Each structure stands twice: as C-alpha cells, then as structure tokens.
C-alpha cells in the first residue's frame, strides 16, 4: 500500500486484519524464539558434570529436571549444609540442588530430612533407608597415587566409609615391588556404595585418588546377553556343555610357574627340580622368602 491510511478511527477491515496478523506473528515469533533459546541453553547444560552429585533419592537426571521446582527446601533441611543450589551459569541446571563430595559430603542422616522436604517427588519419598540411596558411585580412579596401591597402609577411605566392609573392602594382593608384602587395595562395590562422598572428602592426597561420580559416569554395564560361565555352572550344578578336556598349558607346569626368570624358561633343559628345603632358605629368588614381620 502506497497511501497512508485515512485518518479515521476505524481502519478498513483488510488493513486491521493485516495489522493484527503482523502483531500476532511478531509476538508468536518472539515468544517461540525466547522459548527456543531457553530450551537450547537448557539442553546444552543438562548433562550433569562429573563432580556434581544429586541429593539422596533423586530421580534419574532427566526425570529430576522435570520434577524439581528449584525451591531449595531440601537445601534448607540439610543439617550439614551439604546441599547447595546451582547458580545461573553453573554447569548444573539453574536452581537445582547438588553437592560436591570433596567440599562437603553427604552425612547420610538416618531420617533423610532432604527427601522428606521435597514437595514434588523429585527426591523420591520411597527412599526411607539411607543405605539404599544411590547418589553416585565411588571409583578409585588413580592407581598411581593411591597410597594403598603404593603398598602403604593409608586405608582412610575404607575407614571413613559409612558402609565399611560392604561398599569399600580392602582386597589383599601380593606386592610385586617388594615381593614380600601385601597390598591392601580399597575396592568399591556398587551394590553397597551410596555415593555419599566421604571417601573422596577424606582422601589424604592433595587431589583425591578415589572420587565419587554420578552413577551413569562411574558404572559400566555388561551386555544383556552376557552370561558368566562360572555362575551358570554353579547355578546348574555343573557345566552346561559337558566336562572339558583339560589340556596342559606350556610353561605353567613348572613348579615356579609365573615367577620363573626368563632365561630359565627359554632353556631347553628340563625344568630344574625344586632344591632341598635347606637350599630354599638361602635362595633369594625363591617364592617363599621365609620373612616374617
């Protein structure tokens, strides 16, 4: 239209309809753009970072983000100030509760006040036993710096574990470095670990060797069709495919199998007979050093 509208109160129906459609289109477009922007921002930031753990009883992350109204009532009811609300710009969804194990771990209150405080069920009220909580899963990630892996007796993560001897056990292994000591390796068991984070909090190293991650990050999964032969065998009281022919394994039939020096193994001479007991005590290369603490 080249001419301006006549200066009347009422615009012609076509013009007013066009103006209305323009307005609606602009408003709808603006609204959609803003919603889309918020949606894209949320999608980008909706992956929980490795060091952020949800409170006990939290639904799976996707469901949690639908259910949580970001009111902070769980944060207020946490007696140890473990929980905090994510600030805008944090890598955790704005306003949702989380905790960082290395900063303040979960003290695993028996009455679980944070779960009771949740008005929407983002924290599942079905959780009544704090030992059943799965906030995350500990993993001893650094075998190179863990003092127990170095053969020392630190054991702090094991000692502080609220589910001691179930969630973390010390597994005794031969120490190949000294060749005479044991290593007691802290070992996490996913069937008992609540992910409270006390092990990570108390690890004595400047950077913890044991860390607690959200379960999806910490845990692998076997394929659904996978069967463990030894379990199936135990369940059925015997091998499912009949007894197998036991074949000798070359090299393993020698008495010092696995610890024989290389030059002994490549020699074509028959394996040397075990020396008499008196000689054993004097041979440094022998398996049993007779050392006693």
């Amino acid at each position: 239209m080249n001419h301006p509208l006549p200066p009347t109160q009422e615009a012609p129906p076509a013009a007013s309809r066009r103006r209305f459609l323009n307005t609606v289109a602009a408003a709808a477009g603006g609204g959609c753009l803003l919603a889309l922007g918020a949606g894209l921002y949320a999608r980008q930031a909706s992956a929980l970072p490795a060091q952020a753990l949800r409170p006990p009883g939290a639904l799976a992350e996707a469901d949690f983000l639908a259910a949580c109204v970001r009111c902070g009532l769980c944060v207020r009811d946490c007696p140890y100030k473990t929980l905090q609300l994510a600030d805008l710009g944090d890598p955790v969804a704005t306003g949702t509760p989380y905790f960082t194990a290395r900063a303040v771990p979960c003290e695993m209150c028996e009455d679980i006040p944070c779960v009771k405080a949740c008005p929407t069920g983002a924290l599942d009220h079905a959780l009544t036993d704090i030992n059943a909580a799965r906030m995350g899963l500990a993993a001893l990630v650094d075998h190179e710096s863990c003092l127990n892996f170095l053969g020392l007796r630190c054991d702090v993560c094991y000692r502080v574990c609220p589910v001691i001897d179930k969630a973390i056990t010390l597994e005794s292994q031969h120490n190949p470095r000294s060749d005479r000591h044991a290593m007691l390796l802290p070992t996490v068991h996913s069937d008992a670990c609540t992910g409270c984070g006390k092990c990570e909090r108390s690890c004595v190293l400047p950077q913890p060797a044991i860390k607690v991650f959200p379960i999806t990050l910490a845990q692998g999964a076997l394929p659904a069709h996978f069967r463990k032969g030894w379990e199936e065998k135990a369940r059925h009281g015997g091998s499912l495919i009949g007894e197998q022919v036991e074949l000798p394994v070359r090299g393993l039939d020698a008495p010092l199998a696995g610890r024989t020096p290389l030059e002994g193994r490549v020699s074509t001479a028959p394996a040397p007979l075990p020396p008499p007991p008196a000689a054993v005590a004097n041979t440094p290369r022998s398996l049993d050093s007779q050392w006693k603490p």
Partner: protein
Amino acid sequence: MTPAARRARAHPGAEALAVKGWWRAQRWLLLRRISQLGILALFLCGPLLGGWIVSGNLSSSLTLGVLPLTDPYLLLQTLAAGHLPYQTAWIGAALVAGFYLLLGGRVFCAWVCPVNLVTDAAAWLRRTLGIRTGRTPDAATRYWLLAGTLAAAAVSGSAVWEWVNPVSVFHRSLIFGLAGGLWLILGIFLYDLLIARHGWCGHLCPMGAFYSLLGRFALLRVTASGRNACDDCMDCFAICPEPQVIRPALKPTGPASPIVTSVNCTACGRCIDVCSKNVFKITHRFDPRSPS
C-alpha cells in the same frame, strides 16, 4: 509538548503531592514496598537470623513448618514436562491459585514479585531522564511466551523456562545468596530502561501472563468512581504499568462501569496515589456505586 507537560510526564504525581500531602500521595506505593520487602524478610529471617518463618522460595515454600505453598505456574511446567508431583505441591498450588483467583492474579506482580522493585526503578529512571528510545513489543507477546514455555517443557521433558526465569532466579538469588542471577536482572533493568517502557512486566513476562489469566474473577479492583472530576492531567497514564487498562473505566465511550476489569491491572494503586482529584479508589468487583 510544553515544558510544563514534559515536567508533568517526568514527575507524575507532583500535583497530588502538593494537594494531598506526603502520605496520601504515595500511600499505596509505600504499602506495596512494605509488602514486597516484608515477604522477602520472611524468607530471609531463617538464613540471616536463624529464626525460620518461611523456608524455600516463591517456587515452593513451607511456612512455619506446616503451610505448603507452590507456584501454580511452576506446577504447570512440571506437569507439562511429564512429572506428576506429590500431593504437597498440589495443595500448595491450589492454595496459591485460590488466593489469586479471589484477590486478582496480578496482585502477585505488584505486591509480591521482587522483579517489580527492579522494573519500577527502571520505569522511574526512564521517566525522570525522559528516555524514549527503543521499541515496545506487543503486549500479547507474554501469552505466546507463556505457551512457548509450556511447549518447551513438554518437548524437552524438563522445566526449561526455570533455567532462566528472571522471577524465580532473582528471588532465589536473594534468598540463597547467589550472584549469577543478578546479571539477568541487570539485563531486565537495562531493557526496561533503554528499550521498552514497562517492557518486561507489561509485555514479556510469562509468569505475569499466567497470573493475568488467574485474574478473570478478581475481587480486588480499582475503580475510577470519581471520573467526572478528571482534569485530563494524564498522570495516571504516565505512572500506570499497564496504561491500557485505565481508558475503558476512566474514559468510556458509553455508560460503562468505572471499575477497571482488565485482567492486566495489577492493583498496584499508583493511579490512586498520583491523582490529585481523587478519581480512583480500591474497591471490590461488585461495588454497585456509579460514578459520582
């Protein structure tokens, strides 16, 4: 515009201040500030003084350990995202929705919402400095945005608007001592100051749009019952955060009721304050009095 008119536009209510005195020229504004800050104080008592009256925030709260209140707009987003909340949230949302259905939805905006403090400040500065820049979006944008936030929640399965919702982010920032949300509020302040007059609260905020929808049957209303005394000074239009709601009551084309029935009226009472002719007053929806 004459210099006098420009001055009046920059300082609406100057005449009322001279005629009615300090208290009556800003009574409703002061009451509103007391309400807004008082509600913040109720939330802050616990964290600052250790005496818990209300814990949580505007999204969902617990008063004195017994009274649950939940923002019905948030409940709606949660439902759209595909989560069926617990009974506590339903009871809280029903109480809040019932309260605002009775009193008037946008009463939340004027008397409770902390963003109102910011946008009022921006509007005051814009008036005082005489800033006329920018472009105001259509006032219906907020309803589209409201629909967009619910659609985004349904599509993404997550309450995505709550990542950036300035109302809940600001309130949470104040109550929980977070700083990140303040940038968002600064953005809204600058938007209202430089780009659009009453841009956020009056045109964009989907939360305000939601509470507008709750205001259909609001009991608490402003009436222009003294409209015959109006001297067309335009102070009420200059100060009103939703100026379009005044005209049908104040300057009707026919013998219409003087009661402001628009759902967008926030019942802030500023028109009552700034009018030197006592045209407006707060009344209830069924006030039978005709204009004097």
